[in-house]
């Protein structure tokens, strides 16, 4: 799941090198923590979280295929 979050985030931000995704798993729930440069926060969240929502929707679609539950957190 990590790769998908990474691919999408890197395509949206101005500073792709600062995109870091950490993946932790507990009780069948995968948590992806997305870190970006402070100036790029808006680029991955969007107006009223529209971009974050789209990002989560796509990740969720990918995770259902692997029967996983994935939570994406933007930190």
């Amino acid at each position, binding site marked *: 799941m990590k790769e998908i979050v990474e691919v999408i985030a890197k*395509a*949206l931000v*101005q500073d792709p090198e600062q995109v870091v995704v950490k993946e932790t798993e507990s009780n069948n729930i995968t948590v992806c923590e997305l870190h970006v440069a402070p100036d790029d926060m808006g680029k991955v969240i969007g107006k009223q979280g529209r*971009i974050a*929502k*789209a990002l989560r929707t*796509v990740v969720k*679609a*990918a995770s259902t295929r692997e029967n996983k539950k994935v939570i994406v957190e933007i930190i």
Partner: protein
Amino acid sequence: MLTVVEKTGKSIEEALAAALTELNVNEDRVEYEVIDMPKKGFLGFIGNKPAKIKVSVKKVPQIDIAIKFLEDIFAAMKIVVAIETVKNVDDYVCDLHGEDLGILIGKHGQTLDALQYLTNLAANKDMSEAKIRITLDVENYRKRRQETLCRLANHLADKVKRFGDKIVLEPMNRHERKIIHTALQDDRRILTYSDGEEPYRKVVIALKR
């Protein structure tokens, strides 16, 4: 990101190599112009002149960025998808083909809309260029959905005419709402409007008074 550098070197090749390292790209991504030709001086040291070149990174067409973005996502999802791109007057349509692509559509096309939104953002990241618009489709899903919505609209309009009560549809995004409005705009006895706040905005079909 750096896009233009000037480099000097004993030869053009050497200057170019230095520029490629600094720009961190391959040679096929750049173009360069020679500012100074290298000159060998007298006895090899008096009047030596290094080569000087200006190297700039070629702009990648926006649609190529979009296609690369989609390919990367599909690779990360481990699904095999063929992307067929058609250029129209005011947008590009990328039709996705492959087996078992239902997951890319999602409930009422939610996933497809999300992916399309992200693709447009990725393609238009460089704000110095004119915006392009990309529509994603999976195996003609959008066309089929449009036909379904038109049928639904006409069917419900008949009901409204018969019973006189207005009908409120389920929440839809603006593209789908537009399909309903357009389908019924020529019906003289029917009035359509949208009600509620996003993302729960709904179309209402009512009798014209």
